[in-house]
């Protein structure tokens, strides 16, 4: 109810997408990329959502999109609102919000490194953050296969082998006639 009211208030000022009320103090709203910055500023300055809880991305590989999630918290009202921004996966770029929250620069650095999403103007974006000497697909993208990479890069200790119970039983109980 409360979140719906907030949505309605915002809707008068900004064109908004879908609203998902997760709990009575947490809702997610889809926003177009170009609307995000003014909306964030409005939420921060006029609605009391002054705490940027996190900024992260979800890779919807099938849809060819990245979802950026900006989660804001209003401590006085104990409410959280998550803004979902869908950006194209083939040219992932988003406006930087480091001037709204200095802490956002770190999130943007991480997203740049782990998802390959660009935030022009964000400080130290080019510097390595977590990884070192990484080349290839950014690891948090869905099309990066960590197991395959690990197998290729590192050596497992030999001596491991396993049997499938069903196959093993067929072989043991029926010999070569295992398959009917």
């Amino acid at each position: 109810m409360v979140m719906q009211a907030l949505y309605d208030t915002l809707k008068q000022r900004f064109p908004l997408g879908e609203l998902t009320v997760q709990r009575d103090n947490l809702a997610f709203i889809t926003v177009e990329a170009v609307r995000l910055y003014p909306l964030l500023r409005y939420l921060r300055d006029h609605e009391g959502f002054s705490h940027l809880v996190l900024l992260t991305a979800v890779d919807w590989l099938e849809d060819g999109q990245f979802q950026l999630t900006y989660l804001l918290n209003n401590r006085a009202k104990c409410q959280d609102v998550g803004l979902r921004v869908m950006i194209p996966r083939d040219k992932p770029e988003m406006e930087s919000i480091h001037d709204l929250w200095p802490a956002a620069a770190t999130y943007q650095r991480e997203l740049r490194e782990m998802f390959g999403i660009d935030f022009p103007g964000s400080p130290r974006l080019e510097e390595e953050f977590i990884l070192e000497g990484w080349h290839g697909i950014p690891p948090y993208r869905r099309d990066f296969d960590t197991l395959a990479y690990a197998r290729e890069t590192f050596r497992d200790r030999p001596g491991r082998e396993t049997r499938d119970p069903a196959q093993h039983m067929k072989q043991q109980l029926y010999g070569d006639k295992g398959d009917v």
Partner: protein
Amino acid sequence: MKEELLKRIVKTPDGQEIEVDPLLDYYCQEGPTVQPPAYTAIIEKLFNWARSESLWILGFGTGCGAIEMRPLMTPRFDAYRYGIQWRPTPRQSNLFVISGYLSTKTLKRVIRSYEQMQGPKYVVGLGSCTINGGMYWDSYNTIKRLDDYLPVDVYIAGCMPRPEALLAGFEELKKIIRAGKAEGANLYAKNFEWYKANQKSVIHDWDMPDYNW
């Protein structure tokens, strides 16, 4: 290679011009040498006894296992009475406890720290991660087998091993040292090329010592 590692001319504040070749200046060209045992067996035995009773651990908590070092360093478990203590710098240490998983980024620092340590030096692998990758077996960022990159004397099973298990591991290491079998440093020197090749195969940003001090 990073810009700051390139060879360049630097002007000092008092106006002198000096040439700096960071890689050459920071690292010597030679690989480590194999240290033969002492001339007589009895002396070597004495040495080994002394070595075994003074395990000085490098205080570099490379992974989660480091958390169980604190209880060991403090009165409850008091590892000091076993001749074990922690040192802040590699120069003073002879035992490197790899406390669990190593990301490739840490591996680089670990190798550098290891190479800075004085021989004879020992490595203890703590927990599953050092043995066969542990729970990060499918991670893109952690090594799976510590013995590919460093000579390991003793492994302690667990995730994570308790302080008592660590102590048991150190006691085992002492036995190995006394038996003259803790030849890790020499192994590293002997197979230097092999270790280097393995290290280079996973560390992509090779901004690190090609050779040790």
